[in-house]
């Protein structure tokens, strides 16, 4: 196998910006942010638990 040639081909593919995977959408980022906030609130509330 010509490693360099194979690598070159794959990098060309990346540079063409061909989508290799399904991207996270803005909605997904917002959802992750909401989950993070919920966890943060729970952690803060935990400080007031006995």
């Amino acid at each position, binding site marked *: *196998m010509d*490693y*360099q040639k*194979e*690598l*070159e081909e*794959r*990098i060309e*593919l*990346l*540079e063409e910006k061909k*989508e*290799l*995977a*399904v*991207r*996270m959408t803005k909605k*997904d980022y917002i959802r*992750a942010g909401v*989950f*993070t906030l*919920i*966890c*943060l609130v*729970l*952690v803060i*509330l*935990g*400080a007031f*638990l*006995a």
Partner: protein
Amino acid sequence: MNQKVENEINHEVYCGILPMKDTERTCGFLDALLILSGYCIATWSYTQGAYLTGLVSFKRLLITSVAGALLMLLVYQLPVILSTRFGIDIWIWLRSVFGVKGVKIISVLVIIVNFPWYAVCCDLFAKSMINLASAFGVDPAMLPPGTELGLELLCVVVGTALAWSGVKTIGWTTRILVPLLLTVGIFVVVVAFRNVPFSAIWNYAPSAEMVAETLPGKTPNEIYLLALEANFAFVITLVGGMAGVPRQCKSEKAAYYAGVLGQGVAGSFFVIIGAVMMIAMQYKGFSNLDPNELTDPTRMLSTMASPIAALASLLLVAFANIGTQAVGSYLYGVTLKSSFQKISYHKLILILCAYVAVLCIWGGVEEHFGTFLTITACVYAPLAALLFVDFFFVRRQGLDFRSAYEMKGHTNYVYTHGFNLVGIIVLAIGFCLSLLVYDPISGTIHSHILFKLTPTGFSLIGTGVIYFLISKFPPIRRYLRKDTAVSPITKPFDRYRVPPRQNIFMLPFIHLICWFLTAPYGLKIKKVNMEGIKPPYLVLGSHHSFTDFYVTPLALFPHRANYISELEGFE
């Protein structure tokens, strides 16, 4: 393409660093979740649970183990999407952060501080086996000398053997193993709750003496923060190997949530089981036993259920440790491969195997466990912060792949003799930040205000902010972004946005400053034929010097100006 070449390519993709094509992706959300859960579920989860019962109540333990762990994971795991998007390991990206030579040192450092975990894993596996033998009436003292070490080495060797053929074998193993482990976990919880009243576990709180023994002189809230810190430090240990599985996923969301839930839910579930077992065994009057024995499900099940149930649990727990060893060898084998491209994957996992074996033979890891855990947390938090800020804010999700793969003629990530001094210095600062807040060896809190963020949390935020701010300085930005020509920031300005007007409240201040700056030179403005001219209008003026910027506002007053400039001056 003949079969041999295809096999070689597959090997370089799955056990190497070639960017993975979309057609080569094998993992969906469930596969990734199972593999990462298999990695996180090990006997050390029980140890973590037992440690936490000595600090906080059961309710606080639930909050810190689940919400605390998820909070940290949801933030630091976000950059794994780069692995899915480009099919590369994070260590390829980190070449831009530390330089092509710097990344080798950092990856080796991360592995040196991470791998004592695996020696602990092997030790717990061996102890679990010996406990079972004693439950079946075999006196541990009668076992031949070196039995424990032999069992530890067996765990290392079998784990490495599973990692030998790559992630596909591990995938199949975890598909069977993880559901069985979760079943055993549920069984353990049921047995504990049948033997001990629900209220005894739910209302559990450690005695004041117990807390004072573990952490003398601390307030309840400081102890809560230390329990939270223990969970932050526990989950952030995955950062070095977090991309090995996500790069094989077909969707960024699947990869991200598999990492978050694998550790934050499956791993935390076993931390809680460890705590439940500890509380149940204490309730049953076994508190005089060694903590490792108290949280050994084999011991608990043979005490509260039957030796047969214990045997079943042992076999699974044993496989869990071996599974962790296998996934760990694979993930860090690929990490090393990212840094040492010319050494084969098989040689690298053998080196890792030898390192764990040496640690097992030395036998001093458990004794220095606290120190090692502290050092790991100090390294991982700044590493995670650098990756996060670099990916989202400095390089804005673009990389010069040719420089990252050190292709001929592409040297953007060589920086200073192969080292990115900015990245390495910020990592060192981040390492010191957590120690500035808390000294884990003496247990001294240096800053009570910053301690509220926890040492790992403060180090993560502090490193990220420092890296972001210094990357804004033009000379440092030019140093960091040598790849701008290849990977330009295409959206520094929103070219479609209507230009905002100058803030009217700033107008008197601007006028005043301009007047002060020009007054010493006796500036006089003569307005000819300007009567009746109202905005909007276009001013075309010659640009003699930078004094123009002070003269123009005075000439236009009380009207406000929008200055037009070429974008190249700012990009």
